[in-house]
């Protein structure tokens, strides 16, 4: 099935986007990235540490992932915009995963600041993939602001709580025409499948893989999960019923 993910005119065959935080080593990260089959991976900017052994960039180049810089850690539109500009210069890409958080404990987005930053970055030519909460109104406003993708959370970053409110995601799916990427909260493979079954175009996750006991195995699980969910969405599931519906017919039952 030729069924590419298309964001801002670029096509990808994998619908799993990998975050790169939380890995125990660059080596573990590389093995997980390879197993995941991801074609896009996030990267962050921090004060450079001249003593850091190796570089996440070399890993990502080796694996062949497109870079998706983020603005993690920014609490205001101003900081996020500046970080995005630094990232554009550092990574030579207009793509930005825009994060503007409202609180250090929940890492939940501040959607008012997020919207401001999105508007400014879109004006400045960025391809904005906006990490947002699961509020359909916020998602619609971000789309209207010109974001290339909206990336609602399932639950707080790193919480592993999965998709707390599938109804909101279903509404976002119905209301948005840009790609919807489930970003944050995935804990295990069934969460990723559910995201895709709800109609998300892709899944972005980090901790669920990088902090699993066996990151490469979980990465492979996630790869298949995303594929399974995409296929299942399009295969058209059976309806739910309270009572049974026989799979073996009663007709022709012998009188033994």
């Amino acid at each position, binding site marked *: 099935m030729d069924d590419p993910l298309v964001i801002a005119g670029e096509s990808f065959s994998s619908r799993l986007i990998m*975050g*790169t*935080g*939380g*890995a125990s080593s*660059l080596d573990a*990260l590389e093995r997980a990235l390879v197993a995941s089959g991801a074609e896009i991976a*996030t*990267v*962050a*900017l*921090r*004060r*450079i*540490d*001249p003593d*850091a052994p190796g*570089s*996440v*960039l070399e890993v990502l180049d080796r694996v062949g992932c497109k870079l*998706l810089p*983020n603005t*993690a850690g920014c609490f205001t539109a101003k900081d996020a915009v*500046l970080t995005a*500009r*630094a*990232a554009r*210069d*550092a*990574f*030579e890409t207009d793509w930005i*995963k825009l*994060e503007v958080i409202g609180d250090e404990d929940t890492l939940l987005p501040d959607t008012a600041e997020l919207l401001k930053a999105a508007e400014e970055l879109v004006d400045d030519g960025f391809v904005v993939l906006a990490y947002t909460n699961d509020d359909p109104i916020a998602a619609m406003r971000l789309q209207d602001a010109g974001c290339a993708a909206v990336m609602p959370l399932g639950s707080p970053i790193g919480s592993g709580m999965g998709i707390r409110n599938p109804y909101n995601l279903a509404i976002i799916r119905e209301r948005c025409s840009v790609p919807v990427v489930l970003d944050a909260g995935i804990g295990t493979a069934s969460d990723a499948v559910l995201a895709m079954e709800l109609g998300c175009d892709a899944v972005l996750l*980090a901790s669920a893989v*990088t902090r699993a006991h066996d990151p490469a195995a979980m990465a492979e699980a996630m790869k298949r999960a995303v594929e399974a969910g995409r296929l299942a969405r399009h295969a058209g599931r059976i309806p739910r019923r309270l009572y049974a519906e026989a799979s073996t017919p009663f007709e022709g039952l012998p009188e033994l």
Partner: protein
Amino acid sequence: MTRLWINGSAVELDDDAHVSDIVGRFTVSPRGTAVAVNGEVVPRSRWSDVSVKDGDRVEVLGAIGGG
């Protein structure tokens, strides 16, 4: 001597130091590296042109895993 802040630490540099000199202290690879001076990004193409002065707050940023 120029006294300024690099990544939050007080540093003394020779007079007439440029951004490119500062970057060179951290890394040889421009890719993955960004510089902001006093809250404005200095594009890589201008690192050699822009000099720093007393009191500047310079941030030299590099790629880490995240997100």
